[in-house]
C-alpha cells in the first residue's frame, strides 16, 4: 500500500518496476514523434505559434508552461482534436495526417485528458472498449475485455474494478481508467495532461512510478504540467512553452527548478504569503454534523463539522470528490442537508435558500466560474449586479437604474482591474482571469461576512493567481471569514491560518497550518488516518486526531 515518500519521488527498489521493465519491447512502432512549425489560432487568440517539439520512445518529455501557454492546445493537435493552421507531424520521420482522435489512436497515440473523458453512466469496461472493434463482430465482448483490463491493471498497478460504473469511482480510480483506456488501445505515445492535479501527493507518487515503468517498457510519454518538482522528478527532457511559443527544450539533468521557472514565466515568480499572525475572532460560519446526499444517491457529506472565524482563512485540503462540491453547495444554500445544522453569524441557516445566505453575508466564488459564476450572455455590468440588482441604488421599485449600475460597473472595472473593452461587453468574451476578477469584484464589494472560495486560482495564469490570492488576504485583513477550497496544498499552506482535511464527506482533522506538515496532510487526504492502523507512521497520525 501507500508509503510515505513525501514529494521527493525517490524510487529506488520497487518490484513493480522490475516487472514492467521485463515486458517485451518488441512490436512497438513508434520510435520518435516530431511536431514541426505548429500554428493554431482561435478567434482572437494565437494559441500555438510555430512550435516544434519531439519525443522518443522510452523517454518522458515534460511539457512545461503556465496556464494559457498553449500546452494543451498543442497536445490536442497531436491527438487530432484540433486541426493546426499550419505545421506538420512526423512519426519515425514520416509525415502523418492526424485529423481526428481515430487517426491518432490508429497511429498509437493515447491521451489522458485533464478533464476526464469518461462516460459516467457506463461501466469501466464499457468505457474502455468504446469505439473499438470487438472480437465478436458487432456484438460486445465485455467478458474478455474485462479480463484484459484486469491483466493490464495488475501489470501496471492500476487497480480498478472493471464492472463498476464510472460515476461511482473516485477521482484517482477514474484516472487509472483513463490510463488503461490508452494502454488498452496499444498507445505507444501517451500524452498526460496535468495528471497529478487532482491527486494526493501519495497518489501522484504512485502515478509517477507507473509512468516511469511505462517509459521503461519502451513507450514515449509527454507529461503536461506546470509543477516544477514533478518535472525534475520524472522527466528526461523538458520543453517549455510561453504565450504559445517554444522557449526551449533542455535535458532535465541540466536544469533546475529556478531555471525552469524563469523560462516558464519569463521573470521571477512572486510569492504571496500570509505574513501576519492568526487572528482569533468569533466563529462566523459553523457547520455541525452535516449530512447531505450526492446527486446520485449515497451521502456525500457524512457528519461534517467545521467552523471558520472572523479574519481567518480556513483551507480545505482534500482530494476532489470527497465532498468539496457538496459542502460548497450546502454552504451556498444550493443543496439541502438531511441532518445537522448550518449557522451563519450565530443565526440558524439550516436548509435556507441561496438568497438568504447571500443576504446574511455570504460571498461565493464558485468552482466553475463560467457556469456558476457568471451569466455568460450578460454584459459585464449586468453580471456585476447579479446579487444586488434588486437593491438601491441599482433599482428603484422594480425598475433598474441604468445610470447607477453603469457608474458602479465602471468603478468596479477600475478598482479590480477587469480588462474589458467596455462594461457592455458580453462576459463570456472575457478571459478566465478577468472573469474571476469580475466575480471577486461582485462578491467582495458586498463586504461579505464569510467568503467561500472554491478553487479560486484554478486555471489562471500566474499574474491572475497572484491577484486572487492577494485579494483573499485583503479580505481576510478586513475581518472576513474565508473558506478556501483548493487542490493545491501549497496554496492552502501559503494562505491559510488553519487547515482542515476533508475525506469521504468528513473533516478528519483541523489544525493550525504551522503545526502540520505537507506530508501529514497528504496522508490524511488519502484516508490513511482512518484506515491504515497497521502502519507505524499512520498510527501516530491517528493518535493525533
Amino acid at each position, binding site marked *: 500500500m501507500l508509503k510515505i515518500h513525501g514529494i521527493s519521488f525517490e524510487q529506488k527498489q520497487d518490484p513493480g518496476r522490475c516487472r514492467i521493465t521485463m515486458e517485451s519491447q518488441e512490436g512497438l512502432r513508434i520510435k520518435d514523434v516530431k511536431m514541426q512549425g505548429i500554428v493554431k489560432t482561435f478567434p482572437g487568440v494565437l494559441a500555438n505559434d510555430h512550435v516544434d517539439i519531439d519525443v522518443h520512445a522510452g523517454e518522458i518529455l515534460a511539457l512545461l508552461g503556465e496556464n494559457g501557454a498553449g500546452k494543451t492546445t498543442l497536445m490536442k493537435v497531436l491527438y487530432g482534436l484540433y486541426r493546426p493552421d499550419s505545421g506538420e507531424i512526423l512519426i519515425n520521420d514520416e509525415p502523418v495526417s492526424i485529423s481526428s482522435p481515430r487517426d491518432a489512436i490508429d497511429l498509437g497515440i493515447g491521451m489522458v485528458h485533464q478533464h*476526464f473523458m469518461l462516460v459516467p453512466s457506463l461501466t469501466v469496461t464499457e468505457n474502455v472498449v468504446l469505439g473499438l472493434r470487438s472480437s465478436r463482430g458487432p456484438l460486445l465482448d465485455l467478458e474478455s475485455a474485462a479480463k484484459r483490463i484486469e491483466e493490464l491493471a495488475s501489470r501496471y498497478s492500476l487497480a480498478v474494478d472493471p464492472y463498476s460504473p464510472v460515476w461511482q469511482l473516485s477521482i484517482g480510480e477514474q484516472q487509472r481508467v483513463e490510463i488503461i483506456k490508452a494502454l488498452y488501445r496499444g498507445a505507444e505515445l501517451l500524452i498526460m495532461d496535468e495528471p497529478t492535479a487532482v491527486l494526493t501527493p501519495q497518489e501522484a507518487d504512485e502515478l509517477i512510478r507507473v509512468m516511469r515503468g511505462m517509459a521503461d517498457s519502451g513507450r514515449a510519454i509527454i507529461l503536461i504540467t506546470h509543477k516544477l518538482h514533478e518535472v525534475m522528478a520524472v522527466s528526461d527532457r523538458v520543453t517549455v512553452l510561453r504565450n504559445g511559443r517554444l522557449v526551449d527544450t533542455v535535458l532535465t539533468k541540466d536544469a533546475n527548478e529556478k531555471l525552469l521557472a524563469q523560462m516558464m514565466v519569463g521573470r521571477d515568480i512572486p510569492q504571496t504569503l500570509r505574513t501576519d499572525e492568526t487572528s482569533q475572532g468569533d466563529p462566523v460560519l459553523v457547520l455541525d454534523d452535516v449530512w447531505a446526499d450526492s446527486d446520485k444517491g449515497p451521502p456525500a457529506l457524512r457528519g461534517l463539522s467545521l467552523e471558520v472565524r472572523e479574519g481567518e482563512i480556513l483551507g480545505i485540503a482534500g482530494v476532489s470528490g470527497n465532498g468539496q462540491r457538496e459542502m460548497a453547495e450546502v454552504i451556498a444554500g444550493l443543496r439541502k442537508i438531511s441532518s445537522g445544522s448550518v449557522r451563519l453569524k450565530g443565526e440558524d441557516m439550516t436548509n435556507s435558500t441561496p438568497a438568504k445566505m447571500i443576504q446574511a453575508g455570504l460571498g461565493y466564488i464558485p468552482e466553475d466560474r463560467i457556469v456558476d459564476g457568471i451569466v455568460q450572455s450578460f454584459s459585464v455590468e449586468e453580471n456585476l449586479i447579479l446579487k444586488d440588482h434588486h437593491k438601491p441604488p441599482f433599482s428603484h421599485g422594480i425598475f433598474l437604474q441604468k445610470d447607477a449600475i453603469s457608474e458602479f460597473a465602471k468603478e468596479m472595472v477600475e478598482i479590480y482591474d477587469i480588462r474589458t473593452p467596455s462594461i457592455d461587453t458580453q462576459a463570456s468574451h472575457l478571459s478566465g482571469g478577468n472573469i474571476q476578477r469580475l466575480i471577486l469584484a461582485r462578491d467582495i464589494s458586498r463586504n461579505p461576512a464569510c467568503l467561500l472560495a472554491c478553487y479560486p486560482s484554478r486555471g489562471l495564469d500566474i499574474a491572475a493567481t497572484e491577484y486572487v490570492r492577494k485579494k483573499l488576504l485583503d479580505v481576510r485583513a478586513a475581518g472576513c471569514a474565508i473558506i478556501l477550497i483548493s487542490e493545491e496544498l501549497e496554496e492552502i499552506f501559503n494562505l491559510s491560518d488553519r487547515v482542515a482535511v476533508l475525506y469521504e464527506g468528513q473533516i478528519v482533522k483541523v489544525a493550525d497550518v504551522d503545526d502540520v506538515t505537507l506530508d501529514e496532510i497528504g496522508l490524511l487526504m488519502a484516508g490513511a488516518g482512518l484506515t491504515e492502523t497497521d502502519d507505524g507512521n499512520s498510527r501516530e497520525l491517528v493518535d493525533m486526531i
Partner: protein
Amino acid sequence: MQGIVISDVIIGILATGVRLLAPFLFASLGEMFCQRSGVFNLGVEGIMMMGAFVGFFVTLRLGNPYLGVVMAILAGIVLGLLMALISVTMQAPQGISGIGLHMFCWGLSGLLFRVYVGFITSIDGFKPLPIPGLADIPVLGPILFQHNWMVYLSILFVPISWFVLFKTNWGLKVRAVGVAPQAADTLGVNVNAVRYQCLMLGGALAGLAGAFLTVGQANMYADNITAGRGFIAVALVYFGRWNPVGILLGSLLFSMMNSLQLWIQVLGINFPYEFAVILPYVVTIAALAVAVKNVWAPTALGKPFRRESI
C-alpha cells in the same frame, strides 16, 4: 349493456390496446435511439405522415404492401437525414427544427396526395395473421396472437432494440455519445456520424410507424392521418426513461387508455366523450410527472456537438 359479457369486454379492451400499440412502439423506439444519441427529434410526427403517404401510395400503385413498407422506411431515412443535416450539422435548436420538419412533411404529404392520388381511396393492406396454435389459446389468443404481422414485429422490436442498445458495439457508442460526446470523441467515435445513424434509424422507424397507419391499420390515406400520434410517441420516450422496456410499458399504458376510452363510449357509459378522448393525454402527463427520475438520462440531449468548443 345488454348482450355484453364482461370477460369479452376485457379481452376486447386488451386486444384493441395491443393493436393500437404498434405505431407508438415503432416511433418511440426510433425516437429512443435519437434521444440516446443526444438528438431530440420532434419531427417524428411529420416523418410518420410521409411514411403513411408513401406506404399508401406505393401499395396503391404497385399493389404490394410490403414494397410500400420498404419505401416508407426509405422515405423516413431520407427525412431523418434532413433532420440530421439541420440539427447535427447546422446545429439548429432541435425542438424548433422538429416543428419545422413536421410542418414541411404535413404540407408535402398533403401536396403529393393531391397531385398524385387526388381522391380518397382504399388499398388492400395487411390482414390479421393469427399465429397457428397460439391464436386459439383462450383469452391470450385474441389479445396477443390475432393481429397483423406488423403488430408482432413492433413487439419484437422491443427486445431487439434492447439487445442492440446494450449488447452491441454500436449501441455502446449510442449510449456514450448521448451522455458524454466529448469523451466518445476522444476515443475516436465519430459523434456526429453516430447521431446521423440514429436519426436515420429513428426516421426509418417513424416511417414504418406511419406506414403501419395506412397499410396495417386504416388501409387508406387522408390528410393529417397521424393526428398527433408522433408527438405522443416522443412523450413516451421520456416516460419510458430511454429504455425499450419502459417504452413498451408506456406505450401499453397509453394505448390501453385509448382502448379503454373507446370501449367506455361504445358501451354507452354516460360521460361526456370529450373527457374520454382526453383521458390518455391526462394519464400520460400524470405518468410523466411521477416517472422515476434518477436514471441516467442522455445528459447531452439537445446539445449539438462541436469538437473545437471543448
